[in-house]
């Protein structure tokens, strides 16, 4: 890991969604401050966790980092370049480097496309591997890499279980060899016994491919397991950002303390889970 070189810098990022009153003559009645002045860096090769409860702005932050939403204010820099205002082919070039894995493996895959064409879609969008046979080879490699049987190339998403679908989502995100992978609640829709499979896969891929990972989750134990540094969000702001051991060992902010104390099993120490 090249010490502390930031891959992405987020500065004073804000996203306010307007609230309107009236249907014919809509007027602005206020704003939801979903993200309200957030600054942090993502260091090359690290796993950064963003943890918080529903509505704290963690997913909006991810979408702003991906340029899927336009910020109200603030900047996002990727490899030193401001990507906040880039458009057209420049934006397309940036998007190759930034990929996302979504929460719900059921709604994030087009049910009418085969797995092969879902994983190959990034190639089609970016005009890569135009040769059909070559593209198919590449897709099969990716499927194999995420632990799917490459022979299932022609199957449809409904033929796969939740965990396998999430692997398809990961394969699609890796297709273009991104530098930064943002995973928004990648395991919260999965069964307990399947979550560990997907978490292990993400970690292996990160180690092998030198990926930088941003993991967004409401699950404090998952974040502790996966992340080098952790940001805790509350009401659109980061209330604490620290190294993993420091945050879990000596939380400073009262909200972080409250979150940690609220995890079931955490309060009755004689009953903490062993094994």
């Amino acid at each position: 890991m090249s010490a502390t070189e930031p891959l992405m810098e987020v500065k004073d990022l804000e996203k306010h969604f307007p609230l309107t009153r009236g249907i014919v003559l809509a007027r602005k009645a206020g704003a939801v401050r979903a993200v309200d002045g957030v600054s942090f860096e993502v260091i090359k090769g690290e796993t950064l966790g963003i943890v918080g409860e529903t509505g704290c702005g963690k997913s909006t932050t991810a979408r702003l980092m991906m340029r899927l939403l336009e910020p109200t204010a603030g900047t996002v820099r990727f490899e030193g370049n401001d990507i906040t205002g880039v458009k057209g082919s420049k934006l397309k070039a940036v998007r190759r480097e930034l990929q996302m894995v979504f929460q719900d493996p059921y709604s994030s895959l087009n049910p009418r496309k085969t797995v092969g064409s879902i994983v190959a879609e990034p190639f089609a969008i970016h005009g890569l591997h135009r040769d059909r046979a070559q593209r198919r080879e590449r897709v099969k490699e990716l499927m194999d890499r995420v632990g799917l049987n490459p022979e299932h190339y022609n199957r449809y998403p409904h033929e796969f279980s939740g965990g396998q679908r999430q692997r398809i989502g990961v394969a699609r995100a890796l297709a273009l060899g991104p530098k930064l992978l943002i995973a928004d609640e990648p395991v919260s829709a999965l069964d307990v016994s399947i979550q560990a499979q997907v978490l292990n896969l993400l970690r292996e891929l990160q180690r092998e491919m030198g990926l930088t990972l941003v993991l967004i989750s409401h699950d404090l134990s998952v974040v502790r397991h996966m992340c080098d540094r952790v940001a805790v969000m509350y009401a659109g702001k980061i209330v604490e950002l620290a190294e993993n051991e420091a945050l879990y060992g000596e939380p400073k902010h009262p909200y972080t303390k409250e979150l940690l104390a609220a995890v079931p099993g955490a309060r009755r120490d004689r009953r903490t889970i062993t094994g």
Partner: protein
Amino acid sequence: MSSSDDLLLRVEDLRVEFPTEDGTVKAVDGITYEVRKGRTLGVVGESGSGKTVAAMTVLGLTRVQGAKISGRVVFEGCDLLGLDEGALRRIRGNEIAMIFQDPSTALHPLYRIGAQLIEAVKAHQDVSKAQARTRTIELLDLVGIPDPGNRVDDYPHEFSGGMKQRAMIAMALANEPKLLIADEPTTALDVTVQAQILALLERLRGELGMAIVIVTHDMGVVAEMADEIAVMYAGRIVETAATEALLKSPEHPYTWGLLRSIPKLDGPRVERLEPIPGSPPSLIDPPSGCHFHPRCVYAQPDHARIDPELLSLPAEPAHKVACLLEPQVRRKLWEEKSV
């Protein structure tokens, strides 16, 4: 150990099958458990393990779906499976109440919270509307809704998720049930709200002396709430024991897998989690023999033929496990792994 006089509910060899176009789904495949007065049983399992169907069958809520049900559900000496719908309705919501996973879909969006609770009160008690309203306000106060006298006239959309679940709990408590079945009561809620709801259930259990069956996929929740735990897999109970015993010295490889695959909040961080290989089986065509054998790293060839029975450990009659491995072998495997 349970003496017969504090026994509240005994489920005996319960089987529930649903005929479908693709074949018969054996959702619950012969489970037996007991709930004692004022105690909490945690039923843990993944999706498709049959935990919810088993809980709903206790209340006769799976009858309408054309299910084939056999076995016995004995509540205070009376077999609920033998009751007709009318007799069952007097018990349901009165003696036994249930709360569900998603409080936003369980409340009717067009009726005021109060109206829905008053309906629940009046369904089982012969009281005037004014008395029912007073009782409703009492109940909302009991479950910790601030300013219940005014909030009683709110609509569900004016309540937060946690408050809706509190309102559902209030409704379930309307007739002071002896048994509360809570199916994933906190799964849809944020962690801080979850902690509040669990604390509320714990407090109410103490104050009202009711027993609770809490059905969940979350080991943390049962570790915190339950006196006893039953682990379900593919329609069967594979292990049951007092909470401490189950968490400290689990016997079934599936329970090991569940405990080890969860990342922890304390202790050293591990490089890799130990997942359970494969995925949960289809209940239309479950694996032969031990249902867990295709995913079990310790499975022997004959485990695919023999059905394991849920048997007591020699030293601990309350700790039962359905595993074909020799007890000494299991002990050794668990201890080796735990070092």
